[in-house]
């Protein structure tokens, strides 16, 4: 498993595209902080709170990460090189999930570091910016990272089933963003609580002690989609 992840990271870190994505997102963070500051929202606590209000947007980037890790293997027909070497398919599937998560963690760390660091260095540290505030912020960010991990599991699942990158991305967005609309049509809005999208919005607003719910739902989603994906991948044809 570690060797597979190591190989994935080796090729991804040899790719210009990944660094471009990282630089673009970092640039966006700097631009955001600069715009906020120039519009009078010049305190660190406001900037960090604002970050919590835009946690849904990184979800749009997740299929790009799964695309780099798993989608590319489908497109370039490279999975056959790994499977024919006798690597267990469930292990290979798990390694793709972990590689994507690791990549996401690296990207999140850089983006968060740039955003928080730049705002910390350039903005006023008001009285609201306390150690308690930082702990609250960290807890919410950690929780949303789990939601992103679960979303990665869904994205990898669709990538494994639908080899075509565009179709798997389309389905991922559909499932992630429009399932609540489907529940509404079916008069089953009670089920919305199990959706990752709902949990992302809850993470921003609920008290920290209630963050266990998004954590549990994320872990459940992660487990279900990983097991389903492994079962599918175990019997699928590799081209």
């Amino acid at each position, binding site marked *: 498993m570690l060797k597979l992840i190591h190989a994935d990271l080796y090729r991804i870190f040899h790719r210009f595209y990944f660094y471009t994505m990282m630089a673009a997102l970092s640039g966006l963070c700097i631009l955001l902080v600069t715009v906020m500051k120039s519009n009078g929202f010049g305190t660190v606590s406001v900037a960090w709170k604002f970050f919590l209000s835009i946690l849904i947007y990184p979800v749009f980037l997740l299929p790009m990460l799964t695309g780099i890790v798993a989608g590319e293997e489908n497109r370039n027909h490279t999975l056959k090189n790994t499977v024919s070497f006798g690597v267990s398919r469930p292990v290979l599937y798990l390694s793709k999930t972990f590689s994507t998560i690791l990549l996401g963690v690296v990207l999140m760390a850089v983006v968060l570091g740039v955003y928080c660091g730049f705002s910390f260095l350039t903005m006023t540290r008001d009285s609201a910016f306390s150690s308690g505030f930082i702990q609250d912020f960290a807890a919410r960010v950690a929780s949303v990272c789990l939601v992103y991990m679960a979303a990665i599991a869904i994205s990898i699942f669709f990538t494994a089933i639908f080899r075509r990158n565009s179709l798997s991305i389309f389905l991922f967005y559909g499932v992630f963003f429009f399932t609540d609309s489907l529940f509404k049509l079916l008069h089953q809005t009670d089920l919305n609580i199990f959706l990752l999208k709902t949990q992302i919005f809850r993470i921003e607003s609920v008290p920290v002690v209630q963050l266990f719910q998004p954590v549990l739902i994320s872990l459940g989603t992660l487990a279900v989609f990983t097991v389903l994906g492994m079962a599918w991948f175990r019997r699928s044809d590799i*081209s």
Partner: protein
Amino acid sequence: MNETVIQTRDICKTYGKFSAVSNLNLQVSRGDIYALVGQNGAGKTTLLKLICGLTPASSGELEFFGYREERQIGRARSKMGCMIETPGFFPYLSAKENLECYRIQRGIKDAGCVDRALQFVGLADTGRKKFKNFSLGMKQRLGLALAVLNDPDLLILDEPINGLDPMGIKEFREILMKLNREKKTTVLISSHILGELSQIATVYGFIRGGELMEHLSAQELQEKCRKYLLLNVDDAQKAAAVLKNQPGCAFSVEDQNTLHVRQGYEKPELLVQALVKNGVMVSQVYRSGMNLEQYFVSLMEGKKHA
């Protein structure tokens, strides 16, 4: 006794109602260069994919290096190198980076194996050139480099010489023969270029409609394709009685009018003279024989062979 490297027993692969491979029994022994010969869509690639674990079998059994259990077969596959269909690599990496990626993935500790594999296939001087800029022949060579990266006991190659230039084909042939001779590497190869196969193969498997029609050693094939003198006569039995008395003459009666003389026909006019003298009417006499391509074509057409 020859050690069996690959053995399939009634292996089948169906896609819906279409049967790509049906009840196929294949045996490849250690040291063989086994040529899988068949038309497009005959099931060659599907069979190779079944052996490589790229597609699960619908039924039947696969024995690999003596193992039958799925997990053990998986482990044994690490002794195999393969190239199925077109070589798949990451387009934004160079040849060395691509192989390095697989070296890490396969846990090969010897970092020098990458350079050796590239040297082996003549790609050592490609530098930072990315895979996406490679010619088809270079891609094929890199595919072969990956196949030999882990110093395999078994090589499975599907149409490996497609896209290679004549020099490349020659070098490729020499590489395979060298691996087979020096490292006793077993090779299972499919190709449409029959002339090339006939220069390296030690065993042939002819496949059609997903079924193995014939399995022959190179000697057996040579025997079947060997040159002979065809005699068309009015009475083959009468002619046989005459030919029995001719010194060094070996023949077979094919039907009531045809005989194939395989030995002792250096001077056919003497045979004809003897036949005529004994009252046998000879209507046709000519030398015949087949190469691998002709044999394959006649087999596919269902003709009877000499």
